[in-house]
């Protein structure tokens, strides 16, 4: 009872604290100079329908490389700290039901394809490399939830991860050589605005980001699973 009252008091405190924010909220009417440049020149210069994508992949592409590197370090850290520690309790875990197992076996490939769809259409839809990678990883989580004995070929995983990371950097350098700067997407044809093969190298770059993020997150989930059993 005391706990419930305490929770209510904390919730009320947050409500009072956040109320002025909601009351005095006025949306920005004008863009800042940097944003204005992106909004006005972005679609023409880079040919990407999703402006956020053109900012993430091209204008601030170097930052994205840093983000992927941070994720890689996180995955490596998880792998390092979750090395086989013998656990005391070996209570048998309850297996999942047949229905969930076969349902997952049917859904998993569809989820993979959906993840690929998201990162391949990063320049047209609100998706992108990171979101697609997370969808792929959620499919993997579902697989591990349905059968604890499910295994993934780690060699393939590492191969995908390293190849996509290396290709990402290689495309960045290609942009430096063939176009104006690192990760410049304009060394490929910009194509027709709004179709799949448009926006130069953006779909390619986002695919590699998506594959890399997906492989890293699947690796993290896989390491946690190994630590559990």
């Amino acid at each position, binding site marked *: 009872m005391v706990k419930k009252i305490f929770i209510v008091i904390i919730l009320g405190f947050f409500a009072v604290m956040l109320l002025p924010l909601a009351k005095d909220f006025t949306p920005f009417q004008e863009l800042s100079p940097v944003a204005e440049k992106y909004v006005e020149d972005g679609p023409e210069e880079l040919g990407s329908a999703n402006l956020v994508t053109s900012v993430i992949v091209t204008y601030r592409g170097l930052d994205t490389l840093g983000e992927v590197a941070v994720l890689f370090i996180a995955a490596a850290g998880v792998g390092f700290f979750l090395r086989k520690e013998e656990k005391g309790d070996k209570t048998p875990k309850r297996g999942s039901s047949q*229905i969930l197992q076969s349902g997952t076996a049917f859904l998993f490939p569809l989820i993979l394809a959906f993840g690929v769809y998201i990162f391949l259409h990063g320049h047209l839809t609100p998706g992108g490399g990171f979101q697609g990678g997370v969808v792929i990883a959620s499919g993997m989580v579902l697989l591990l939830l349905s059968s604890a*004995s499910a295994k993934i070929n780690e060699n393939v995983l590492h191969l995908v991860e390293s190849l996509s990371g290396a290709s990402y950097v290689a495309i960045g350098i290609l942009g430096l050589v063939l176009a104006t700067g690192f990760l410049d997407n304009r060394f490929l044809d910009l194509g027709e605005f709004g179709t799949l093969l448009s926006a130069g190298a953006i779909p390619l770059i986002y695919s590699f980001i998506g594959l890399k993020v997906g492989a890293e997150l699947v690796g993290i989930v896989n390491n946690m699973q190994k630590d559990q059993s």
Partner: protein
Amino acid sequence: MIKIQIKIKTYTESGAMKRFKHTVLLFLFLVLLWALLTPHNMQEIWAGVAVSALVALFTLRMDPVLGDLKLTPKSFLYLLIYIFVFIKELVISNLDVARRVVDPKLPIKPGIVKVKTKLNSRIGRTILANSITLTPGTLTVDIKDEYLYIHWIEIKHDDLEGATKDIVQKFEKYLEVIFG
């Protein structure tokens, strides 16, 4: 626990033919998914075919659950009939729930009954369980081999045969032809 694992093993050890069928069907499903997701032009279709082939290859070692589908004209016909039966039952079940919820007396007589299914394929049992969950007054709680445990909101039969006849057989006769 051990029993379940042995069960899985016998399923995965079945023939290469089944796996091939599963892969082809999965590829078709993936192409269909892609076609529904994207606008129609040549670029998208080629991309969809390539992605579907890659995903189908990548998941080649998984359980070939779709390998149990039967591809005869009769099974297609039964699939169509099944879809209509399913929609009918779904609407009836919703009206049923609505009636029970609105009634101030809350007329329920719940319990968990045991029923038996003749289906052998795993995906067939999954579809059966899902159909049972979405039809009037029933909810699949657990499955042990060929016995399904079903929460029934208003028990009409106490015994296994009667409950099986009431709950399972309206779907089973179609699913048996489609999945075996």
